[in-house]
């Protein structure tokens, strides 16, 4: 079937994902750098290009509540937020995941306050990793459209019935245009038929209560564990969806993506848009004869432990590049990778932890070179390193200059 190719920002791609999924309801609250998504959907709802109800809410907390409630009626729901907005919705994330409502929330990653910035890292989305939402992290604008379609398919599967968060990086995807192939709507319909929920259907004529009180712990434990099992089921459902999606439109998305891994001694683990830059750095290192590769984590909840173990088995050294920072600990994904490898007999000799790209800070080719060199040395020594903050001498000097300007020059405080 026809698929049209055009230049598109990540935000527009996200809006197209919702449009192609033919969503019914969009509760919205704008926040930079997500605003273009809800603006576009608002426009389409106004012109009738998208037959959905668009409602501007008073906050992200209300937005998420409305999204969950609408999904509980059996509507297909889409919404989007970013950064502090996601945190404002936080209480409700857990609530609607407990309701087991299959909606899709796009988060445009932006680093959290304070200090304030508009550029991305992943402390916003990773703060939500225990909420019960599944998490898909996109590397390209194309992957945003495709992931939203896959997200609905997975979310609505009776073996899952959980909300899904699709993450894209602010600026590096949100405002970046690149070619995107839009799938033909008929293809989408074959992949993602109309939603017919079995366990939902909240309406005025048949009242029911969701998220009821269950005291004493045992009942609560049962439902929480069901939530966990549903999330784990998504590993299989994702695979099925990936096969069908590839059959229909020729693009394949797995839980993790290996890049030049075949004979790689050392592996760099990354997520999201900066993984493109990581792949370019691998190409450079390969051209110099270094046996390095990259593993991109596309799905982070459920945690694809088996796929990760399989990809890392027998490697000399592994470096995890966390674009987040858990103060007092280090990189969030590093901890999860380490935990997944602990029982492996053929685990890599050294695990290295790097923290980079915080607040959208660029990762230069020189920094990637430093990562590969330090990781190779750690592999030879058989002893890991980190967490290492990727911060250059020049950046430190620029920061000192700003500190000088920001403080009282007379007292030198």
């Amino acid at each position, binding site marked *: 079937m026809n698929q049209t190719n055009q230049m598109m920002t990540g935000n527009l791609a996200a809006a197209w994902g919702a449009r192609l999924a033919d969503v019914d309801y969009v509760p919205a609250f704008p926040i930079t750098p997500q605003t273009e998504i809800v603006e576009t959907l608002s426009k389409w709802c106004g012109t009738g290009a998208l037959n959905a109800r668009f409602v501007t809410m008073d906050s992200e907390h209300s937005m998420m509540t409305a999204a969950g409630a609408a999904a509980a009626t059996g509507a297909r729901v889409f919404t989007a937020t970013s950064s502090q907005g996601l945190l404002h919705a936080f209480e409700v994330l857990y609530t609607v995941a407990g309701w087991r409502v299959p909606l899709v929330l796009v988060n445009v990653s932006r680093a959290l306050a304070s200090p304030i910035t508009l550029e991305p890292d992943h402390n916003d989305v990773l703060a939500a990793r225990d909420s019960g939402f599944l998490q898909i992290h996109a590397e390209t604008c194309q992957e945003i459209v495709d992931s939203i379609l896959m997200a609905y398919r997975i979310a609505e599967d009776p073996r899952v019935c959980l909300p899904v968060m699709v993450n894209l990086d602010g600026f590096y995807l949100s405002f970046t245009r690149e070619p995107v192939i839009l799938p033909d709507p008929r293809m989408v319909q074959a992949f993602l038929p109309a939603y017919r929920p079995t366990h939902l259907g909240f309406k005025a004529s048949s009242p029911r209560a969701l998220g009821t009180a269950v005291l004493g712990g045992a009942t609560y434990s049962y439902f929480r564990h069901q939530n966990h099992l549903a999330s784990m089921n998504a590993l299989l459902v994702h695979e099925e969806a990936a096969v069908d999606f590839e059959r229909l439109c020729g693009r394949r998305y797995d839980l993790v993506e290996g890049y030049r891994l075949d004979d790689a001694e050392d592996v760099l683990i990354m997520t999201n848009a900066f993984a493109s830059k990581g792949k370019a750095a691998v190409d450079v290192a390969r051209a110099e004869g270094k046996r390095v590769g990259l593993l991109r984590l596309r799905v982070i909840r459920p945690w694809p432990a088996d796929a990760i173990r399989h990809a890392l088995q027998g490697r000399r050294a592994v470096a995890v590049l966390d674009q987040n920072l858990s103060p007092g600990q280090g990189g969030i994904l590093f901890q999860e990778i380490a935990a997944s490898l602990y029982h492996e007999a053929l685990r890599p000799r050294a695990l290295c932890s790097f923290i980079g790209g915080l607040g*959208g800070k660029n990762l230069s080719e020189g920094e990637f070179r430093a990562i590969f060199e330090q990781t190779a040395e750690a592999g030879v020594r058989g002893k890991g390193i980190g967490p290492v903050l990727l911060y250059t001498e020049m950046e430190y000097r620029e920061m000192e200059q700003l500190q000088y300007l920001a403080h009282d020059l007379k007292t030198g405080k």
Partner: protein
Amino acid sequence: MRAVRFHGRGGQGAKTASRILGTAAFLEGFVAQDSPIYGAERRGAPVAAFTRIDTLPIKQRGAIVHPDLVVVADASLVQDPAARVLEGIDERTAVFVNSPLIAEQFQAKTSLPGRLTTLDLTDIALQQFGKRGAISALLGAVAGRLVGLQRESIREAIARELADLGLAAAVIERNQTTALQCYDAVPAVPLETGSPRPIVPVLLRTPTYEPPTRGTAGITAGPNSAIRSVAGWRTFRPVLRPDLCNGCWLCFANCPEGAIAIKPDGKPAIYYPHCKGCLDCVEVCPTDALTVERETEAAREA
């Protein structure tokens, strides 16, 4: 890979120009990527936008540190350290500057490295459209010429991008015509395709603990907005004709920078060091007492 960096001031169309270039390349079958960098948007403040063009999927993202071509929409940006126009430019970088000076004159004045081309796009826009700004299509066309894209794809890209902005068909057509005249007026500069720049290993320096007076973000210096001049942001300035002013104070009320004061006689006075040239005052003036004058170096220093 062709890496093009655009520098402009908020409102001059650097982002749209980068999109015109990206779309034109896309129409010719290249893989293209374009992205702007902005945040706290202000009319007149330095902005940058980037376009990458390649035959293979592009694995770079974000800011372009080593551009093949730099397009400067406003000559005053070259002297503004905050705009970082000179970053990553060397003698093999192609540079285009919107300036009435010829390349040799401009180069002598600024010691800008790179292979320089100039054209007075602002003047062309004033003559063709009779109004300020509106140089995005012209910038895009010149950039397209310099990286070797076809006339026809530039024409089509301008149509698409300006239509996206909601411009009327007649305006788009005039933009196309003028932009292609600029395209023809600029000689193609073959971009350097030499060996890639060597990757310089970076020196990492992980910060150590410092007292919270330094280790938390904050500003303890006194307010400096009073001493901060934004005169360099102006491409055009408002000029008051007191004889036409009826003292309604609409300009005073609408100035976003507080750059207009009211004198004891009830007439406004423009404080130019704080005027960033947004011209909102001109828009709201009911008696045409405020007019627009093109900024010149001499006037800016006044």
